[in-house]
């Protein structure tokens, strides 16, 4: 190939690549592009629900698979004064609030949570970034807990309000929160975990209580859960997308 021809080809290649990238970027910024991108999540959710047995369990592992250096992510030590006081007191007076659209709002101590129907499971934790760790989780099953409070008929989602302010804001707008639907809330592996690897949940991993909703990614596993709220929809909470990371561009359905 002559030098001229090679230069010409290179030029065409570089221009095409530049055009393509600019097109992708401006599509991403446009409202129409965003709408299309957002609709894909719905398709993925429907397709997975179609092939996924509602009660199908996430893979459980033997104790030899447990990670020795499970990576803590997001907040690792919330600065909220009320939380810090509870942490320093060993969560002795800490209570979980269960409210929203329920017949009987609850306020439960750790001892009361430990007395509820529980489950232990060694499962994989998959960060949206791509890595995985494995740990043993022990906690109260969410389903029986919700039944104890009694969900009203219009409840569609369960929202978890957390103590950490991952957005590092002065007001509450940076508070972590998450939400799941009732299918996941009543899944047998969905726990409010108070133990990790047979020890009380460490602060870096969400003490005293974190959500385990296996079959979804790490950002759904809300740490430092203070309040469980039953709602008909979550449009009025945070920026309305159903979770801290959802409000910042991630999918509400994190099964993929």
């Amino acid at each position, binding site marked *: 190939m002559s030098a001229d021809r090679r230069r010409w*080809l290179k030029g065409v290649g570089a221009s095409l*690549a530049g055009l*393509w*990238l600019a097109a*992708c*970027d401006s599509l*991403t910024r446009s409202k129409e592009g965003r709408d*299309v*991108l*957002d609709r*894909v*999540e719905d*398709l*993925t959710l429907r397709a*997975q629900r179609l*092939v*996924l*047995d509602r009660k*199908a*369990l*996430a*893979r459980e*592992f033997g104790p030899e*698979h447990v*990670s020795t*250096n499970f*990576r803590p992510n997001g907040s690792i030590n919330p600065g909220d004064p009320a939380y810090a006081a509870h942490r320093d007191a060993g969560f002795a007076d800490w209570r979980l609030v269960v409210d929203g659209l329920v017949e009987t709002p609850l306020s439960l101590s750790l001892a009361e949570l430990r007395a509820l129907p529980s489950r232990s499971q060694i499962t*994989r934790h*998959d*960060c*949206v*970034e*791509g*890595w*995985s*760790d*494995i740990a043993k989780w022990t906690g109260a099953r969410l389903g029986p807990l919700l039944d104890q409070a009694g969900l009203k008929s219009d409840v569609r989602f369960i929202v978890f309000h957390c103590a950490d302010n991952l957005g590092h804001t002065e007001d509450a707008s940076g508070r972590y929160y998450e939400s799941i639907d009732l299918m996941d809330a009543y899944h047998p592996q969905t726990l409010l975990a108070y133990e990790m690897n047979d020890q009380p949940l460490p602060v870096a991993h969400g003490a005293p209580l974190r959500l385990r909703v*296996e*079959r*979804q*990614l790490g950002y759904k596993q809300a740490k430092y859960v203070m309040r469980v709220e039953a709602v008909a929809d979550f449009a009025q909470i945070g920026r309305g997308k159903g979770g801290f*990371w959802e409000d*910042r*561009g*991630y*999918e509400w359905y994190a*099964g*993929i």
Partner: protein
Amino acid sequence: MAEKLLVRRHSAVTRITHWINVVVLVALLGSGLQIFNAHAALYWGQKSRFDAPWLAIGREERRGETVGVTRVGGLRLETTGLLGWTGREGARESRAFPAWATIPSWRDLGTGRHWHFLFAWIFVANGLVYWLTGLFGGHIRRDLAPTRADLAPRHVWREIVDHARLRFPEGEAARRYNVLQKLAYLAAVLVLLPLMVATGLTMSPGFNAAAPWMLDLFGGRQSARSIHFICANLIVLFVLAHLVMVLLSGVWNNLRSMITGRYAIEVEPAKGARP
């Protein structure tokens, strides 16, 4: 005197799915690199052993200078500019794959995932159309499956030598794919592309619950992520080789055949035929 004959080479389905795949694969590659950049290390097994990735891309300080470093097994390569510490000199940033290779160009895992899953759906739909029409319409059996004669070692060797000398089939022989083409295309459409979908799905915690056997098939979620990455690289290599061959074996003829379906071959006119 040889004369030019336009033969029908590619069906409409092949041509349409081919061009859709061009766009889709480029979008999947760019958004895939964006996702990879969120954790630029790969592992074997069910979980990540952070101290023992088999591939890791990052930056290091060396002699007071920042360098991009790519580690593959025991190998350590300095890849400043291209991998790990990327971008133009003076405007380098800490990213595994550079901005020009990712969708979007800025760092945004959430948007990268949106792009990836959108195009993954199109890729699967497009692939199914190609597969079903290829299987039932006979394209795969007729045009891609090698014949017994194709696979004779002497013949395969002959083709390798011819390719190395850039001697391409002419006349009647150019009507069909040669055996190297057949094997390369079959490897891509029957092995690499389906493996991408299967390993991609094996990274989904939701799909894991529906099909836990796929975790066993690939040796765990982190192995599936590694195989996904390796296959993506092999597809890039396949495409590069494909582009080189297209350029060398008559770029306009090849392009026309993938657009209009017509491919020109040169044949000797039969004896007694009109000139």
